[in-house]
């Protein structure tokens, strides 16, 4: 199968026909290149409110670049991004953050020198408003704000069952727990859209089960929309409502897990084709 037919096959699973009301973010004909290298070419897909959307594809397919485009770390050369019904141009990462887009990283990107509690509290930064002088004194509104946010953070700590490592510097934690703290930090932002970049990479079965449960619970209890990249197909197929498949920066399939699984283009991309 050549490139052209793989692009054509996307039409079979095109999901652009649903109402715009429940679409949280939609990307239209987005292209991103670094110099001569095309990381993403002409990709369109959307994420609906409250769903779990998986982005899968072989290594180097442009999945992480896709997340970086969504949270404003990369600016695509072509195409538009519509966030909550509004077309947005260039958006800086902190603007995306204050717009309710949170994110975890493929390789854990915690603040190594800080405790679990401080890491999660940092995620509350956007919710805290008192100025420098109150912070110096740490009385009145500053203290009240600190305590109110601490209460929120404690809720998240309880939710993710990490009470016992509250005071531990995150550098000392095992990998699985670090991933969980990172999720907690993202949740502390009370995001509308949560981007998870390989939340289960390098975990054992038990940790994967826990993480899957947390992801479903977050989606269920907080109503957070989730976009996740994951290589474990079992997990992807079980968790996600819809899946988009990328290969070499192009979209080759989009739809419900079952549909995607049976797509010839996807099977070819993963298993390879004889020429």
């Amino acid at each position, binding site marked *: 199968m050549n490139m052209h037919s793989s692009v054509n096959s996307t039409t079979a699973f095109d999901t652009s026909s649903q109402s715009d009301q429940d679409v949280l973010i939609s990307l239209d004909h987005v292209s991103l290149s670094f110099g001569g290298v095309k990381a993403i070419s002409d990709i369109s897909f959307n994420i609906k409110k409250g769903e779990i959307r998986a982005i899968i594809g072989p290594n180097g397919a442009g999945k992480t670049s896709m997340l970086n485009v969504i*949270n404003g*770390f990369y600016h695509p050369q072509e195409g538009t991004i519509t966030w909550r019904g509004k077309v947005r141009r260039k958006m*800086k*990462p*902190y603007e*995306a*953050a*204050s717009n309710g887009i*949170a*994110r975890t*990283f493929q390789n854990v*990107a*915690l*603040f*190594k*020198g*800080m405790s679990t509690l*401080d890491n999660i*509290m*940092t*995620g*509350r*930064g*956007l919710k*805290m408003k*008192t100025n*420098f002088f109150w*912070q*110096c*004194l*740490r009385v009145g509104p*500053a*203290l009240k704000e*600190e*305590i109110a946010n*601490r*209460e929120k953070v*404690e809720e998240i700590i309880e939710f993710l069952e990490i009470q016992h490592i509250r005071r531990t510097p995150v550098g000392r934690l095992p990998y699985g727990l670090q991933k969980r703290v990172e999720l907690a*930090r*993202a949740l502390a*932002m009370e995001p509308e859209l949560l981007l998870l970049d390989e939340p289960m990479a390098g975990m054992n079965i038990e940790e994967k089960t826990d993480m899957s449960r947390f992801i479903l619970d977050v989606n269920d209890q907080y109503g957070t929309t989730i976009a996740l990249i994951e290589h474990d197909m079992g997990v992807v197929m079980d968790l996600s409502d819809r899946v988009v498949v990328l290969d070499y920066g192009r979209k080759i399939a989009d739809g419900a897990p079952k549909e995607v699984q049976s797509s010839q283009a996807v099977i070819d991309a993963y298993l390879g084709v004889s020429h």
Partner: protein
Amino acid sequence: MFYRETGQFKTNYADDQAIFPIAQDRWGIYIILGLAFLAAPLIMDDYWGNAILIPFLIYSLIALGLNILVGYCGQISLGTAAFMAVGSYASFKLMTSFPGLDFTIVVILSGLMTALVGMMFGLPSLRIKGFYLAVATLAAQFFLIWLFNKVEWFYNYSATGQISAPERTAFMFPVTGPSASVLYKYYFCLCIVVITALATKNVVRGRIGRSWMAIRDMDIAAELIGVRPVYAKLSAFAFSSFLIGMGGALYFGVWLGAAEPTEAFGIDQSFQILFMVIIGGLGSILGAFLGAGFLWLLPIVLKNFMVDMLGLSTAFSEHMQVIIVGALIIIFLIVEPHGLARLWQILKEKMRLWPFPH
């Protein structure tokens, strides 16, 4: 056995987030403060004040300022002495232009002025990191010292090019000038250091401090959770320079009384303070004090020991002193790269379990 939090229950988050949540620590700091405020006057004379306690306090304040920038925000600066010079010259100009102004206000205004200058020289940090930033801050060091030597307005056209502090009062007590008493000077420095240390601790354990540490530990992740690097870095530069500028005003006004830019604010001064911060412990308030104590007091102890007790010649003991302090720095950095503050923390963790560590 004596140091543990058993039985000390916290029932609200305010208590849980206290600076010293453990009662023994709290008592320790009360004792230290009590000694500093009540017992020190009993031994206070010219030697203890001018050679030991006042410079220790001033260096602690400056090290605290640099620690904000290097330890908490992860931005290396080699321009500390130049920022001290800004504080000194600002205080000199304020003292001579407004003779009636209380010295407390002079110190604060000098700090604010230094904060502005610091922010200006902090602008490169938005683009460059690490060693490259260190080199950029070196520009501040050389440019500002050159400026204070070159532009006569800064030293009021005096023939020697020196600045000297006129007599000024703080809350009616004379604290600068030749006739100010050592005790007043000491109390003035002590009050400023205690208040700024408390304010600094409050800032670093709040939202702003966490945003600095986030930038230090992982700047990309920090940006993606909503920390604006521009604000975080420049506020760190500003607050750090504010403390260094206040320290500079005290350094010149209260301690030295007279200064000349090339000697008092040379690059070796910048390094001295950077070493204090590194040895004391990056990212620790206590570390600033321990580092200043180590690098300021240890040479004095060594000198007293070698000259007075062993009867060695002054010149010989001075060389030995440099060698010993240098060797100790290396040993410390190998044994505990995170500084004296971390050693103290490890000791406390051990003490909690003692005598049954398993």
